[in-house]
């Protein structure tokens, strides 16, 4: 299954405090909506999907695929998007493209450079990934992982990396104290625009192999003693 520039796609991510929904033709976003309050994502996601389809004048039956932020993030938030994506794909008999919520956030603000995305994972822990973003593509320099912020700061840092995201804002003091820059300006959230921007740069990305068996990427295991095995 190929991502087709002429077909219609639904994209959404509810892994963070702000959720995001869009409908696109290929990777060109036709209509978008933002979901507030994270506790409400399960209430607001389906009505928002209906809303963007109506705004774009597209019938639900015309949707050729679902693009979903696969996490990491709030376990429940990640599951809200994943369960919705699986239900839609099952009923519409269409594929799912699962894309990291970290790259969706990294691509939600304009510009290029080396972005080290951090999501807050409570306490001194973070989810992170580092991307090299240029005009022709996104290079994953450090793949999505989870752990203590200290391990990120003490690890091998790609030269020129700038820290982005909710986690970077929360730990600004520690990051700058370790001698690394934290991006100024609005905090990038994983967004449907970011998901489609990724597919615009990588239209050859493969959809998930078996929708029925697909699971999001929580990164963190439930058991506290073996938490953080990425």
């Amino acid at each position, binding site marked *: 299954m190929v991502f087709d520039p002429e077909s219609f796609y639904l994209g959404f991510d509810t892994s963070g405090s702000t959720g995001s929904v869009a409908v696109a033709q290929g990777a060109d976003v036709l209509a978008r909506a933002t979901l507030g309050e994270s506790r409400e994502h399960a209430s607001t996601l389906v009505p928002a999907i209906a809303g963007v389809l109506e705004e774009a004048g597209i019938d639900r039956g015309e949707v050729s695929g679902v693009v979903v932020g696969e996490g990491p993030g709030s376990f429940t938030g990640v599951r809200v998007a994943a369960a919705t994506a699986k*239900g839609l794909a099952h009923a519409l008999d269409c594929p799912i493209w699962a894309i990291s919520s970290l790259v969706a956030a990294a691509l939600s603000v304009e510009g290029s450079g080396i972005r080290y995305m951090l999501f807050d994972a409570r306490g001194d822990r973070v989810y992170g990934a580092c991307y090299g973003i240029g005009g022709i593509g996104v290079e994953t320099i450090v793949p999505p992982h989870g752990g203590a912020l200290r391990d990120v700061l003490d690890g091998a840092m790609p030269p020129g990396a700038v820290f982005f995201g909710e986690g970077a804002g929360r730990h600004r003091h520690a990051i700058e104290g370790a001698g690394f820059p934290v991006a100024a300006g609005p905090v990038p959230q994983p967004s449907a625009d970011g998901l489609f921007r990724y597919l615009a740069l990588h239209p050859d990305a493969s959809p998930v192999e078996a929708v029925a068996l697909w699971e999001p990427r929580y990164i963190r295991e439930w058991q506290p003693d073996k938490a953080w095995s990425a």
Partner: protein
Amino acid sequence: MSEPRGPYVLGLETSCDETAAAVLDGDNRILGHVILSQDDHEIYGGVIPELAARAHLQKIDSVVDETLSRAGLTLDRIDVVGVTAGPGLIGALLVGVCWAKAVAFALDRPFVAVHHMEAHLFAPSLENPDAEPPFIALLVSGGHTMLLHVLAWGEYVLLGETRDDAAGEAFDKVAKLLDLPYPGGPEIQRLAEAGERTRHRLPRPMLRRNQRPGDPGYYDFSFSGLKTATVELVRGLKADGVLAPQRPNVAAAFQEAAIDVLATKTLRAVADTGCRRVLIGGGVSANQRLRDELELRLKGEGTLFFSSPRLAADNGAMVARAARFRFDEGGATPPDLSASAGFVFPGLVRGVA
């Protein structure tokens, strides 16, 4: 049997550790029925909410596909999508609710949110057409203990409920205490069969001081004191080095105490309402001693309704049946509804019979 006809209702249940689905036809006959029990909780001796939610998401598509295949239907033939929206574990419930809302939206079919305990009331009617209101309902599971006077479908008087642990929870905890696997209900029953019921005496909470209608706990239950007394009994037997041979007697004593309380309160409701039809639902309703004791106390002058094991435990068929009722009553649920651990029991009023 006549040919199945619509409306076809899909019922989904993910409130705890069973991923379940079923399809009913327009005459409420079960066309397909699948319950997948998550076995990963056994190692922990109880349900881990995060693991339960993850497992539901992993299995829900396959469980529905298998259900549809048994029903000989494809998903697009489904007319109504029903799902348990509460009460239960919030993360687990959300998987079913989000999935069901997405499917209903994609197919442009009504989505109907169902109360888990109302669904249990409908289960026996799927196998026995006489299991219709009015009846006294005792709902006993790992999460709930409720005594209701069901006047009609949708008209429920809550007589009593547990003030602490659910009955099934007490069975699970005592099972763990006796090194029995999870879930504990069937294990306690099996072990108790080899024991003497009167070898040890355990307390019957909320019976002695709440004997008249109007007493504060006349219809209510409490199981945490019984659990604590069982812990003490086991500790004493262990200290005396005689626990191993006494395990069946402990199981029997605990089961007798729990069932005595459940049966006594149920029979109070029978006596006070004059309604001699009793329905039991929920996982603990599969307990044979409970059924025998209720039959005995009804003395052949009443009727006891219960389900076969596959419909006594959490299942999708009861959810589909309740969804059909709610859809016929009030139509589809708005799509902005979410799952809720405190989902309101529709048609329930607190009262005295």
